């Protein structure tokens, strides 16, 4: 089976009878209303980021994003993403394999557990690590004795980011692999394929676009997380300040143009993510 079965069959819209279509006036009123809502709710905030960033000219803009504090925030944000995204990708693939290819008790619980970070406030995502590793936390005294720092340092930021981003890859893959069943993999076993080779040669080609989509969503959230990271970061400039936190610091110092300039970098990240997303969806539908 070369191309996987498309999830939705394309029903030709021309086949729909005229009786089940709205009158042309109603149709265009609905379209107009929907477009207006989208322009107001989603496009306007995007435009305002750019206009505010460039309000005081390019010079201020360039200065803001080439500021040493901004650069070190960018570096930290990239570092956090480089560590957390691969870890969560491996977890996502492993969890999706176990959940979709086998039957076991408590499966529904495991799925619910994976969804948990989506429902829990990111602030709680940060708080739980403070309770475990903070100065007054479970391991706090032990860590202090050994001069190890987790909270208000890089490890804490990584842990909090892991927490909020770990469902993304698994959540993308589970429905996809569930729909595909396991006949292809079983056939590969019968033909003598083993272990990881089955995943690599049989499963992966079927799920690759979904997997990539999960990874870029995970990455966007890892680079953009604010609430959870804010709790554990300590906001030390040039040290534990990520890009989103830097936006906040500049904003609270009334350096609005600089704040929006840094925000525009994160907006760019979001737009690139959306671009990849629509590319992946188009690919997976063919």
């Amino acid at each position, binding site marked *: 089976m070369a191309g996987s079965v498309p999830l*939705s069959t394309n029903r030709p819209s021309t086949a729909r*009878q005229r*009786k*089940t279509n709205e009158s042309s006036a*109603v149709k265009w009123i*609905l*379209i107009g209303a*929907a*477009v207006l*809502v*989208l322009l107001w*709710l*989603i*496009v*306007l*905030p*995007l435009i*305002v980021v750019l206009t505010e960033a460039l309000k005081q000219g390019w010079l201020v803009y360039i200065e803001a994003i080439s500021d040493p504090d901004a650069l070190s925030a960018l570096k930290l944000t990239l570092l956090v993403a480089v560590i957390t995204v691969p870890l969560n990708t*491996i*977890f996502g693939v*492993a*969890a999706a394999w*176990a959940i979709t*290819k*086998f*039957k076991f008790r408590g499966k*529904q619980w495991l799925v*619910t*557990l994976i*969804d*948990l970070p*989506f*429902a*829990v*406030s*990111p*602030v*709680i995502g940060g*708080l739980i690590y*403070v*309770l*475990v590793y903070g100065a*007054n936390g479970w391991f706090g005294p032990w860590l202090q004795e050994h001069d190890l720092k987790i909270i208000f340092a890089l490890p804490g930021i990584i842990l909090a980011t892991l927490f909020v981003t770990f469902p993304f890859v698994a959540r993308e893959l589970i429905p996809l692999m569930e729909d595909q069943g396991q006949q292809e993999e079983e056939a590969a*076993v019968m033909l003598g394929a*083993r*272990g990881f080779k089955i*995943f690599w040669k049989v499963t992966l080609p079927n799920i690759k676009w979904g997997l990539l989509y999960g990874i870029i969503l995970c990455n966007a959230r890892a680079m*953009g997380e604010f*609430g959870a990271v*804010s709790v554990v970061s300590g906001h030390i400039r040039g040290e534990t300040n990520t890009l*989103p936190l830097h*936006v*906040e610091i500049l904003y609270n110092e009334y350096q609005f143009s600089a*704040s*929006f300039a840094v925000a525009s970098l*994160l*907006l760019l990240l*979001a737009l690139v993510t959306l*671009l990849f997303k*629509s590319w992946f969806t188009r690919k997976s539908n063919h």
Partner: protein
Amino acid sequence: MHSSTSKRGVLPGFGITMGYSVLYISLVVLIPLSALLLNSTGLTWEKFWDVATDSRVLASYKISFLTAAAAGLIDTVLGLLIAWVLVRYEFPGKGIFDAMIDLPFALPTAVAGVSLTAIYSANGWIGSLFEPLGIKIAFTPIGITLALMFIGIPFVVRTVQPVLQELETEVEEAAATLGASRFRTFRSVILPELLPPLLTGFALAFARGIGEYGSVVFISGNMPMKTEIAPLLIMSKLEQFDYAGATAVALILLLISFVLLLLINSLQRKIRKTAK
């Protein structure tokens, strides 16, 4: 085949993938979460009750609840409209609009927060239109609701869209043939089918709204009793090193999230079942 794998079928890798998943979840979620549940801060029932019924805490729950519910409801109506237009009609620029729906998923919440504040503050593009009328948007519950609407809209659109796409048009055709008006067909044939995804979308937006922090802190103004949301209260208790207080507020918030999550999961299972 090895006898150990035959019990679960012929496919390999159950032990290692399952073991790794459980270990990872334990390290990243279960152990830290148990620190909250097992009361590592020495929170007594008395203190818990004191914090939970404190008027400032109660006010923050009320604000979080009401704004998240209002935003979820408005998103449900607007999301249905957008999903309908995207699935049923063709118009120029449709592909771009469809892609833009996901922007709130991809945009860091802090960016949304500063941008929305700029739009709705007294000298902002929209805020300045309402200022002469004596209506303030930023730094009021209206502003919080608008921020949560931005965050929540893709949840509704993306849950309704696939169901609408799969909807059989035969029943609609039958209804039309039997003389039902288009509006009546929508109300009594299409809407009942869309009820589960609409409810799911609302619940997802609501759940996200209750816990949301980044997009709200800037626009809310954070005035105690008036525009202070529950997640922010956790944050300020932490900043005052009141770990027990933060734990108490977080426990209630967590309980609400658990209930919502179970509800959403059962709704989603229902949708998947009827889809098959």
